[in-house]
């Protein structure tokens, strides 16, 4: 059975069902209790599972993430909510120097199975530092997994998979999509495997890689390109940003010979560069044109009056496709 849910509902349901099923699961974060989280992702959960399992913490991200590390090492499965991605920075050391390394450091003797959920990305007219997309920092950190769903179905399945994963997972939720649309989501517990990209639509002329909120821009652009120019784009949702699903990336590019990467993050040293490099490494001879990066710019995500100009737009993606196809 499935019903239509928004992404935020799908996320709530994933946590709800895992709390119900596994007593080791605990939620930690600022305002996630009675307030249900600033985006209402934990709405109703403290009422159902009590304040010992759905914990309003003090306002201190190193404290939250660091104590979650301890909880995870001692048998719990903590799911941390960070209010916005930029507010993860006070806990950066805990993530990079500890969560990501505890297994390595102890040769597998201790592990840190935890999930850090956080809204990310622009497009909701947020104040400064509420719209960041710095997945690169984490995709450059061995020991972490990084996930970014683009739709309700994947959000639930990926979050459950993340909670069952034995490694720390950073779970990036595109704020802009929380309530953007509804989609069929099965009622039961199911998994969408980490590390697997998804071919969202098939095509032969060019591959578009995207994730999170950018997937919709990519799809939109692909549709317009098909309507206007008749070219068929293959659109791939990466879903997991670390480890990347290289096979899916390469087999598509080997087929199309052309690729575009769309991401909100700054261009320089963004994850797009790694995808370009994977293609360079293994599929250079298939390339009929340079791989194109359509990305956020190399400036701080600006105040919201101009955030639409910061973000890749359908038109920017379209132009990228045209450039690539007419190279």
């Amino acid at each position: 059975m499935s019903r239509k849910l928004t992404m935020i509902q799908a996320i709530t349901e994933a946590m709800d069902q895992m709390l119900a099923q596994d007593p080791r699961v605990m939620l930690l974060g600022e305002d996630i209790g009675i307030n249900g989280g600033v985006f209402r992702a934990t709405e109703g959960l403290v009422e159902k599972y009590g304040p010992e399992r759905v914990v309003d913490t003090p306002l201190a991200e190193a404290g939250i993430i660091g104590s979650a590390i301890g909880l995870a090492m001692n048998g719990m499965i903590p799911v941390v909510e960070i209010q916005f991605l930029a507010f993860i920075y006070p806990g950066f050391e805990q993530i990079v120097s500890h969560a990501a390394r505890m297994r390595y450091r102890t040769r597998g003797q201790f592990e840190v199975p935890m999930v850090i959920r956080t809204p990310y990305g622009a497009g909701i007219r947020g104040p400064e530092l509420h719209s960041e997309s710095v997945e690169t920092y984490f995709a450059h950190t061995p020991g972490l997994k990084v996930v970014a769903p683009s739709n309700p179905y994947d959000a639930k399945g990926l979050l459950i998979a993340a909670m069952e994963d034995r490694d720390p997972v950073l779970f990036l939720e595109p704020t802009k999509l929380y309530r953007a649309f509804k989609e069929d989501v099965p009622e039961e517990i199911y998994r969408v495997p980490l590390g697997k990209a998804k071919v969202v639509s098939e095509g032969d002329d060019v591959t578009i890689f995207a994730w999170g909120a950018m997937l919709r821009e990519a799809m939109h652009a692909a549709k317009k390109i098909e309507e206007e120019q008749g070219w068929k784009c293959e659109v791939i949702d990466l879903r997991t940003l670390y480890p990347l699903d290289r096979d899916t990336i390469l087999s598509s590019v080997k087929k199309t010979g052309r690729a575009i990467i769309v991401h909100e993050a700054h261009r320089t040293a963004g994850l797009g560069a790694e995808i370009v490099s994977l293609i360079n490494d293994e599929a250079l001879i298939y390339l009929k044109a340079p791989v194109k990066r359509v990305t956020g710019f190399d400036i701080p995500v600006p105040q919201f009056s101009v955030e639409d100009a910061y973000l890749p737009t359908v038109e920017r993606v379209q132009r990228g496709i045209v450039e690539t196809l007419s190279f």
Partner: protein
Amino acid sequence: MMVYSENHRKSFDETTISGDMYQVLSEQGELFSSLDGKIDDSLMLHMYEKMLLVRLFDRKSVNLQRQGRMGTYAPFEGQEASQVGSALALSPGDWMFPTYRDHAAAIVHGQDLYRIFLYWMGHVEGSICPEGKRIMPPCVPIATQMVHAVGTAWASKRKGEKTASIAYFGDGATSEGDFHEALNFAGVFKTPTIFFCQNNGYAISVPFEKQSASKTIAQRAAAYDIPGIRVDGNDIFAVYLTVKEAVERGLRGEGPTLIEAITFRYGAHTTADDPKKYRDQDAISQEWREKRDPLARLQKLLQKKGIWNEKLEEQWLAQMNEQIDLHLEKAERYPKADPVGMFEHVYAVMPWNIREQQEECRSFFKKDVKIS
């Protein structure tokens, strides 16, 4: 007056203790002690006027947000005495580090109203302060500005300037590591920094009892052997005198002060927040309004002194509304944000990648960039 650190007891006079916080003006508008030589009638009037202005500004802002003319806004109504009183105790050249909620302090210290409108309208120019002023942009990441206020004060001290720095922050901010590091640094380097905490009892939905096992914030000062004072944050005289003395101490080279001002925000955390979810909003907010309102309290005193009356208030209201409307007009007439401008000021000199991206953006500009 409750002072949490020994070496401070001497310097602050212990005029009045009510409950466990320093008060000068009772909730009924009575003075607990004489203000002779400290606060004269004209300053009192000035305090009242400023509180009135910022309250009107705050209400206007909430309304603008509701009408969709402004983005999310963080209201401060109820906290006027804390913000206005502390800001009035500063000298014009002092450095101010406000949060997203401290517009009243910023306005009193010289920020233009239209800039604050611009800020919440999402304009890149909303964080600029008037030439020569040191009013920092509203600080978004909690507690992080506290260490900056150590640095600026430290620089002032090194330069031999008689300039203090004040950091505003909330009760929730006291849980962050930066709070600790800032207080400790300021204690070690004896910087003229005022750490001004508005304890409004909540960090969004989280009440202070959940924030810490400690009963007060002022008591934390002892951990750094610096003075910690708890004041009635709705008593503008108490706030003003406390901050003034803290500034003087700092400028005498005696180091920082931690001030905990007990107050309450009547409204929501931001316009995106619904306080009914986490507290008995109507009752608790009404109680604060009725019993402890910072304006009403001062009004009573001014009335008794015969320097306030309804007519004067109406005049003020008219003038202030006009002033606010002028600023709003200025903000709303402000040139639409030019996306191409967002590439400026990332560096002193624009590097090649940003320059090219600016061109890239420019080429889209006329056609498809929606500007709000």
